[in-house]
């Protein structure tokens, strides 16, 4: 028997992930060791410190382009950029998660195991401190996402997918208010997520059958050499794509999105909308650009049709929504379509514009959900659209901020929504995908309608008796809101530096 040699592992390059996993484990220990009342005080700084430390390592590694840990992990431009983006967006989302002044006890239920509607449940709704287990779960999820965008083979990618999905399923079930809705959302997310994972695994098996390997470089070799059966390749690629498009919320694999976005605690929804989307598209970029660029001509028309369908579904169904969180969910679906347009450019500009879009959208969507957490009445958040009527009279500042964010979603110039859409459409046009651009432009014009309808409703209608008040945000939510709005404005007015950064970060290692 020959000796096993551990592969060389570049611990500095893996440090961001290791730190977050470590922080998550520490967080679990904190749950066990620290008295309940003080857990939040320990968990929040611990999480923030961990994220900052991870970010420091990401920045320190900025120039690294290598594969490590036995080729299982690729630390390259997109991986580092996406890791940085996930960490920064995670910090902002964590601020929302940590907010306790809006609702006594925070956004999470104290004891999720208590039956809904029982006496104990009613008493815990009124201010018992929320479950602090959420923090280590968030850390696990973020660590999994960091690994997901850096995974260089399909097995590692699958493990990362599960590592970041499982905590999210759990987090969805923790809402303090409307717990049945929240638990239903979690169960749906879990079942459908497992279903999508099965497709992904089946795809891995077929790709292994085709290429004899699951490392992207070997797959690429096999695809360019053209040996092996095309059926294995394309059936495998189709099934892989289904698994990834599920996480990215592309039609027709988007069905879970509105229910889950609506049911999950709003800070978790913002985490999913910003970070999960970033991770999913990061992985999709890597699979398509590193593993399968040789099959571009075959998959582009099919995924292009999916992109168009996604944009259409998101844009049209957003019009019919009556709940703010569902509306934002459909908007997130439509944005997945625009991101796909950028991905399908299959050019370096396609990569950089998609990276730019992810960051721009992430900040805007977190800020939008931050506003959603503020509009509340005695029963918690008031998310029904009719309740938002006349909000501009009640609270011009927050209605103004939300208007700005909606305009950004609608892609009105001078917001990041315009520059990012411009970038992805420009990249796709440059990549010769005129049909996608035309569909994208038309649906984005359509999509502006539901947003502006909300704007008009907030400003031009009279506040009714049921119009809720806007809570004064605590320090954490204010910080998240200010960061989100400033970035949205800055990327709309001065997108140059970030565009440069994404251009420089656009090179994959194979």
């Amino acid at each position, binding site marked *: 028997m020959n000796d096993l040699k551990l592969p060389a592992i570049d611990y500095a390059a893996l440090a961001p992930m290791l730190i977050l996993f470590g922080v998550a484990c520490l967080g679990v220990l904190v749950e066990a060791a620290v008295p309940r009342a003080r857990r939040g005080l320990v968990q929040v700084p611990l999480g923030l410190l961990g994220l900052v430390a991870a970010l420091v390592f990401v920045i320190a590694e900025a120039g690294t382009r290598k594969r490590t840990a036995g080729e299982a992990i690729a630390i390259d431009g997109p991986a580092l950029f996406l890791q940085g983006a996930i960490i920064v967006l995670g910090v902002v989302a964590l601020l929302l998660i940590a907010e306790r002044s809006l609702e006594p006890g925070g956004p999470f239920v104290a004891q999720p195991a208590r039956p809904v509607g029982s006496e104990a449940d009613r008493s815990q709704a009124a201010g018992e401190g929320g479950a602090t287990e959420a923090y280590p779960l968030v850390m696990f999820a973020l660590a999994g996402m960091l690994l997901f965008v850096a995974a260089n083979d399909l097995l590692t990618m699958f493990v990362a997918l599960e590592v970041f999905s499982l905590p999210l399923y759990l987090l969805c079930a923790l809402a303090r208010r409307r717990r049945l809705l929240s638990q239903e959302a979690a169960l*749906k997310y879990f*079942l*459908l997520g497992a279903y999508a994972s099965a497709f992904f695994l089946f795809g891995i098996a077929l790709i292994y059958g085709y290429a004899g390997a699951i490392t992207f470089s070997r797959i690429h070799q096999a695809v360019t050499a053209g040996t092996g059966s095309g059926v294995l390749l*394309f*059936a495998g690629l*189709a*099934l892989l794509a*289904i698994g990834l498009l599920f996480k990215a919320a592309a039609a*027709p694999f988007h*069905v879970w999105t509105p*229910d889950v976005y*609506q049911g999950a605690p709003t800070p978790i929804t913002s985490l999913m909308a910003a970070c999960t989307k970033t991770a999913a598209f990061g992985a999709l970029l890597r699979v398509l650009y590193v593993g399968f660029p040789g099959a571009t001509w*075959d998959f582009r*028309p*099919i995924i292009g*049709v999916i992109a168009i369908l996604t944009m*259409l*579904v998101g844009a*049209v*169904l957003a*019009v*019919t929504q*009556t*709940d703010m969180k*569902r509306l934002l969910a459909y908007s997130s679906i439509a944005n997945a379509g625009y991101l796909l347009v950028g991905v399908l450019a299959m050019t370096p*500009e396609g990569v*950089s514009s998609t990276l730019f879009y992810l960051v721009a959208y992430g900040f805007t969507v977190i800020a939008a959900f931050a506003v959603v957490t503020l509009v509340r009445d005695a029963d918690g958040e008031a998310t029904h*659209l*009719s309740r938002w*009527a006349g909000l501009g009279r009640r609270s*011009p*500042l927050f209605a103004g901020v939300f208007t700005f964010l909606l*305009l950004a979603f609608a892609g*009105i*110039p*001078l917001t990041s929504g*315009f*520059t990012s859409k411009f970038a992805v*459409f*420009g990249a796709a*046009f*440059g990549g010769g995908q005129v049909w996608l*651009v*035309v569909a994208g*432009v038309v649906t984005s*014009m*359509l999509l502006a*309608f539901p947003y*502006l*309808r909300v704007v*008009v409703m907030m*400003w*031009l*209608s*009279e506040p009714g008796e049921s119009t809720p008040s806007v809570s004064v945000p605590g320090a954490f939510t204010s910080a998240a809101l200010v960061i989100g709005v400033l970035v949205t404005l800055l990327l709309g*007015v001065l*997108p*140059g530096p970030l*565009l*440069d950064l994404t251009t420089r970060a656009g090179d994959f290692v194979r």
Partner: protein
Amino acid sequence: MEHTVQFAPATGLLSGMWLLVALPAVSAAVLLLLGRRADRWGHWLGCLSVGAAFVLGLLSFFALRGQENRAVQLNLWEFISAGSFRVDFGLLFDPLSAVFVLLITGVGFLIHVYAVGYMEHDEGRRRFFGYFNLFVAAMLVLVLGNNYVMTFLGWEGVGLASYLLISFWYVRPSAATAGKKAFLMNRVGDAAFVIAIFLLFAQLGTVNFDGVANQVHTLSSGVTLMLGLLLLLGATGKSGQFPLTAWLPDAMEGPTPVSALIHAATMVTGGVYLIARSNFIFTANSTLQLVVVSVGALTLLIGAIIGCAKDDIKRVLAWSTVSQIGYMFLGVGLGGAAYALAIVHLLAHGFFKAGLFLGAGSVMHGMRDQVDIRRFGGLWKYMKITWVTFGLAWLAIIGLPPLSGFFSKEPIIVAAFERKDWTAWLFGIAALLGAGLTAFYMTRLFMLTFHGPKRWTDDIEHPHESPPIMTIPLVLLAVGSVAAGGLMVGPVPKWLTPVLGHEVRGEAVLAHSAITILAIAVTLIGAGLAYLLFRDGTATAPQPAGALVTAARKNLYIDAFNEAVFEKPGIFLTRALVFLDGKGIDGAVNGIAASVGGGSGRLRRLQTGFVRSYAMSMLTGALLVVAAFLAVQYGWFA
């Protein structure tokens, strides 16, 4: 293009041209963000900022006259840069932008002042001025941008402000519907504009006006045609031209100053600006010019015919706007010298149409917001100033010499007769016919409103003249209506030469003097006919009418056309997607115009999503995706 277009960097006073945009923008921000604290003085700030912008525009104008290269640009910062592609946040002050700046800020200032009086009793006056200033800022960006992306930026901004202002009286359902309609039809045009920008970017690698102007000759004629058609579609959307006409008359639901400023004087002329600014593209392809001319001629007739059949004072004026902008499109489509003529007509139209709308607003102000001209009559005795100013604007628009409409419209008719082939007759006669129809419907409007027997509703006893703050702008605009045309028809084309090219006149198929006489004769016939028919008033209820009048009352079935072509498929698509989504959203889904609000019934149904039906739709998707990939593999699509 033979000569190279080059913009000089801004120096001196002109380097402060960003203030033109910043003044109203800052004022809008202050008004909208300060909230009720600004209620007492907000409207004066709104006026002041636009007035200051006008003074600055005037100073800049004179500064530009002293320049050798009369095209000065100011690059504020790099807006978007991706690889070789670069868009600056840059402003361009050249003769064309200069005249637009003066029109927007000048007429805009007068309308702002008027609105102080008009909106006095509306509690939303401060917000109204906020949106109004926002509009002015966006419109200035539109005409000052030095590249297509900047123009688009302003384009979106004015669309947004216009949407907000149309929906200003949100409680009225018709206002909300009108806002939606305006929004959607504009979006069709906007989409075309964006795609044109991407096309430019893909073909030329630049979207700057100078870059495009210098390289446009390298494009194949097919690409130029495509580009021009896309830009034209964008322009028709913003300017309410065929086929995207229907939103403009509906937009009259907004407050009257809005109709005057946005839907008569400035925003709706954005399409004309776009084509004039892109003259290098349109001149490069004669097919393109023919299309523009056809759109213009068709729209000017449609607008005039429908204008004859309407009874709502603002809608008549709105269809008249559609028709007059048709003249402008005709002008820019004819190319050569007619570009400048179109701009002259645009400026003159800005004065008299703003005057007409403000006059209409003054009438409505005195008549308890009545808009039906069959319910007016004999008002000249009660509103002397409005009567005189409205009358002057009326004479101006029908083109009676020596008022401004004559000097601006008649040359366009002449230019139409100067086309090189048989189309000269076609377009020339259309333009002449339009002039006659204009005279008819405007005279009808004037006679029914101010003369003839009183046909007021019972609740009106003593109509009153509007306060001075409203009449003074009326007087100033009337002076403009009288004088502007004659004063501008000489110098403005000369001033615009650096942008629009040198004057090349063709040979008209008829003698110039003959056309002039014909135009005046047609006008007099139209006006005389209307006078004879309507000097004794009219019935206050709709009368049975022939096919043409019925068609005209129904907007020549344009709405029905839109419904069949755009709305029905939209509703169908929505229904289909809702069905596919497996969601039991109830029958309240009215296509794109789904109503807001909703009862408990809908809330209950929100959670009918069963996880097994979700899984099934995913399986369907998976089946299709795998099948599609395998089909590609076996070449089933090839």
